[in-house]
């Protein structure tokens, strides 16, 4: 058996968390409901259509949203996009885990671009779901609101603006590097930045 990635005394309390589970497939939804019940959740908001889920988003406070990509009345990607743009605070900022059955690479990018925090390919056994819940709870990325995107910051590595663009953020820098205007730092200066020492006197 694979070693558990969790510490033996690590705890989770989902009993009163507001969790929305959206899956149009009856058995798929039942599997999710049972999994979360096993995790200790009392009453998840279970929905089989996006319309139903939109009602829950408007009426309840949510801590986590779990959505299947294959929803009958609006696909899962569109639902997440709606949530991020029109869901209203605080639910529009809730962590979203998107579950995908048949997945093509283009659909993974769609998952990232619709504003989901995580995209998980099926099958999703309890261990995998638990890891994703923990990851989502430790999510520290900033939130971005732009005309074409609303969701967690997709630039989770400091790589600057997308290639071929100037960038739209006030702190985006040009890719062109100019001449240095001050002398280089020596190693002591650099060390001091990482290990500051108390000033004497």
């Amino acid at each position, binding site marked *: 058996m694979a070693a*558990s990635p*969790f510490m*033996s005394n*690590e*705890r*989770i*309390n*989902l*009993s*009163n*968390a*507001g969790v929305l589970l959206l899956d149009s*497939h*009856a*058995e*798929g939804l*039942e*599997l999710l409901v*049972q*999994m979360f*019940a*096993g*995790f*200790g959740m009392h009453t998840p908001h279970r929905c089989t259509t996006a319309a139903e889920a939109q009602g829950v988003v408007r009426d309840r*406070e949510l*801590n*986590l949203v779990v959505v299947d990509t*294959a929803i009958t009345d609006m696909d899962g990607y569109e639902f997440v996009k709606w949530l991020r743009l029109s869901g209203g605070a*605080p639910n529009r*900022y*809730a*962590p979203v885990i998107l579950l995908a*059955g*048949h997945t*093509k690479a283009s659909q993974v990018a769609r998952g990232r671009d619709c504003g989901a925090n995580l995209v998980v390919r*099926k*099958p*999703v056994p*309890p*261990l995998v*779901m*638990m890891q994703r*819940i923990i990851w*989502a*709870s*430790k*999510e*520290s990325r*900033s*939130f*971005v*609101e*732009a*005309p074409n*995107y609303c969701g967690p*910051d997709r630039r989770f590595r400091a790589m600057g603006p997308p290639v071929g663009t*100037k960038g*739209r*953020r*006030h702190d985006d820098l040009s890719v062109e590097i100019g001449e240095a205007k001050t002398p280089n730092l020596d190693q002591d200066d650099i060390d001091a930045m990482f290990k500051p020492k108390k000033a004497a006197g």
Partner: protein
Amino acid sequence: MTEARVFKIENRLTKAISLPGGKTIAEALRGADERIASVRDDCLASLLAKSARLQQLVELGKREADQTAAAGIYTTANEVFGIASAFEMAELAEAAYGLCDLVDDTRTRGAVNWPAIGVHIDAIRFLGSQVGAEDSATRRTIVAGLRAVQARFAGDA
């Protein structure tokens, strides 16, 4: 160009799951396994109905070249994949996934290959009826045959 707004948000999930009480993660995982096992029979029983639906849809598609039949087959095959993969029915899951691939390719190209879809559905019906059966060699042979069909279909593109 409109500037993007970037800001920090409060992660309300962190707060909720850190409240006193709850379960250890080991207990939670055990609980989830038990709850999922309790619905296994119902989920597997639904595979027969889904197989029958696939058969109806492919007959409709062959007869009337109906695009909605192709969409229905994709959705149902995706559901079969979800159940089969959740309960570790590897060959059935692979057959259902292959059918999704086939229908997806078909949509992209605009020319439905009904015979290839029909072969996959026949295989899914057989594999779906093999719940609990020991004969994995036959199942593996069937899946190998489906891979050959997919390769042939990809070669025709």
